[in-house]
């Protein structure tokens, strides 16, 4: 099974044409970030700043046919390597084959963070300790992967009334989240948890909860060339990497991926992505968004919580310090 994904990744990896390859300069301990994107120019300045501030040392990015200048912008950054492909996002298993290919080539023996451009990684003490402190601690503890909850953030008021200016922190526009409506089951096959819920489940999937998007992610992994992501960053092979949770009552250290998806661009994005038909399950998700966003749904309610910092999320039990004190 794992072999099959690896071979597939190698094959799909040939789609990628280097635009700016600066990976020669990578050190043995470089902290890497991997992402696939398409037409995300307005989000890029803040995205790069956020992760540079955390201590990411090099960005390895697949540009899937952007025509808004994303590719040129990225290629001009000194700490970014860009590959470009016009191939089908869907045929590359929603970009995962490309990610696996790049990870295999460049991340072996290094810590790699795999995120989307609208996901912001939060870990315990991220305001006082750089990412290197976390990876050093994980190394010392003999841990190879670090789990998170994908926490959907939304604005107050109809989503399409909240534009995000380029370079602006999207969390200023969409600072709200749901604190305790996440349902968890265990996936026996891959041993990962399957978490669903949040505003997307209640706002768009109340009638078909099974179809609600998965919110469990393992974005930070000490990579080995034998590893492979199976479905987005929700699960990995070998399966042991998915055991980022404790089953005997204790709490392992974990983080959150703040997901700033619900911004004014989503309406356009949903229409565009629907037309392309390149997304998971026939773009089921985007169909639901397009339908609901047209009637100006407001995801906010009086129980919505406003994001302050990681400590708040820790107290609410959305992430945990575990024994990292």
């Amino acid at each position: 099974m794992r072999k099959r994904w690896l071979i597939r990744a190698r094959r799909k990896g040939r789609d990628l044409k280097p635009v700016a390859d600066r990976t020669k300069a990578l050190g043995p301990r470089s902290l890497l970030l991997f992402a696939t994107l398409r037409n995300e120019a307005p989000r890029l300045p803040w995205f790069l700043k956020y992760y540079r501030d955390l201590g990411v040392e090099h960005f390895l990015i697949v540009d899937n046919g952007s025509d808004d200048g994303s590719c040129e912008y990225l290629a001009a950054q000194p700490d970014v390597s860009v590959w470009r492909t016009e191939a089908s996002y869907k045929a590359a298993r929603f970009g995962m084959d490309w990610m696996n290919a790049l990870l295999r080539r460049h991340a072996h023996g290094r810590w790699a963070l795999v995120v989307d451009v609208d996901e912001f990684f939060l870990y315990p003490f991220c305001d006082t300790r750089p990412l290197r402190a976390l990876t050093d601690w994980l190394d010392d503890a003999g841990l190879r992967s670090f789990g998170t909850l994908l926490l959907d953030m939304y604005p107050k008021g109809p989503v399409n009334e909240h534009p995000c200016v380029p370079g602006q922190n999207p969390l200023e526009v969409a600072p709200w989240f749901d604190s305790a409506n996440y349902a968890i089951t265990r996936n026996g096959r891959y041993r990962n948890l399957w978490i669903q819920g949040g505003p997307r489940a209640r706002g768009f999937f109340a009638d078909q909860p099974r179809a609600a998007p998965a919110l469990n992610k393992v974005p930070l992994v000490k990579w080995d060339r034998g590893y492979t992501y199976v479905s987005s960053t929700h699960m990995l092979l070998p399966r042991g990497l998915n055991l980022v949770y404790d089953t005997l009552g204790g709490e392992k250290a974990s983080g959150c991926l703040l997901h700033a998806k619900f911004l004014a661009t989503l309406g356009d994005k949903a229409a565009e992505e629907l037309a392309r038909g390149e997304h998971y399950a026939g773009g089921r998700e985007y169909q639901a968004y397009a339908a609901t966003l047209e009637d100006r749904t407001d995801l906010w309610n009086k129980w919505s919580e406003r994001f302050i910092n990681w400590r708040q999320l820790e107290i609410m039990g959305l992430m945990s310090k575990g024994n990292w004190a």
Partner: protein
Amino acid sequence: MSARLGFVMLVHTALDRAAQVARFVAQAGSPVVIHVDARVPAAQHARLTAALADLPDVRFCRRHRGEWGTWSLVAAMQTAARQLLDDFPQVQNVYAMSGACLPLRPIADLATWLERHPDTDFIESVNVADVNWTKGGLSEERFSLWFPFAFKRRKWLFDRTVDLQRLLRINRDIPDGIDPHIGSQWWCLTRETLDLILRDPMRPHYDRYFRRVWIPDESYFQTLVRLHGRKVESRSLTLGKFDHQGRPHVFYDDHLQLLRRSDCFMARKVWPGAGRLYDHFLTPREGSVSDAEPQPSRIDRHFARATAQRIRGRAGLYMASRFPVKNRENGKTAEPYSVFQGFSEVFQDFEGWLTAVANCRVHGHLFAPHKAEFAGREKVFAGGLSDSATLRDYNPRAFLTNLLWATRGERQCFQFGPGDTQGKGFDLLWFMAADSNAQISVISGAWAVPLYRSGRDFAQIRREAARLQRIEMQQLEILQSPHVRARIRIWTMAEFLENPAEPLHMLFDEIAPHSQARLIRIPDLVDLSGFGSFLQELRNQGMQPVLMGDFPLGPVSPDPSHRMK
């Protein structure tokens, strides 16, 4: 005065930080002998020696190849200590530290403090028979088995040799006169004691024994000090906490205040990237010597809390890194809650009454088939829970645990009944019945009251009554099983109505213990004047309603006093 205190420093990583610390110590006038692990590349070693070349009292000793848990670390310590004693005859106390240690107070403070404790050896040394904190499952076996393989590099061989020796009941002879003690390897010994240990004529014999002990660096000096020390004070002057797997907790910039207030002399281990800590504690301070006593307890509590969170977690929390298997939850739910079955059926506006008299959140039927009846019938409730029945029924147990987690600090009460979602195989009730936070009170048979009052077609009523009775019978079976941990009370409807005030009083005392003295009017009962004949009619139609108890055919007259004491 600092010249009478010498340091032995073991270094294997982050050499630049070690150099910084060595310089700080040497500049205070204390000699240092550094042992650099033989695995450190020559170039790095050369950089370190060059960086400290201007300090004559920093010396480097012969290098051993260090491997965690093995004799090599003791050998390194012996070599460095011997050199320190020989090269610096004025040294009276020897402090063992690692390159990841950071002095939290001026060296002069420590030197003065040691002057005030003459002839005392500070070394954590606990009889191995009495320890409970060894991690990794081995305590006495560290001394009675052989350990030829390194734990970290050859884990499998290590484990198999332990298994094999257990099987063969291997029991090594412990040398005469030795009583194994263990403790932290970061000690501070007097010259006399250390010299006696190193010059002991029996030393080759002891060394041969300890070579095959597991983690001898935590037991060699700790054991031998009991032979030679005059006054052993069993504690380490180095502040260092270990987690549940025996790994040292690491200090970062955000621990600055905690470390400052501890008044400890030395901390281990410090993350090499903690620039603020190094800057702060290695900046020479003005002022006189402080006499403050070390107070590690605050830091102890800080890390003890973290270990508890890792091991036991927070009760009632289910999240991305905590998903306990059944019965390992350490608390299935976050807080106590009350489940009422049949109360809103026999009382008029039971919800409204309970809301008014008890300080808690009272919901309707949270698991009603059409939607979750939140208090005030809100569409979304605490934590962002939706009232959608499909969403709730997708994982009813998560719905309940989420609600109780999100409303910590406020007691939740809700109505339940055989007409509600039960979950797959009565999963929900099993969960609540096994939860010590649950208070479940049932008036059995009360589900018939709404049927009686519905005025629907009797054939329909009969079918529905049979269905609800079947479900409630299964519920009662669960509630009476030997596995329950909830506080469960069950009355038949007939029993309950004989004197409704008393059970209500009792439940109320549990929910709101502080308002028991208040006189509270119990809510009015619904009109049950024709209920007896309704039940008879069900019987006449061939159904057997049994859960109500012996209900009189005529009208009931409840206790006239309608008042709680």
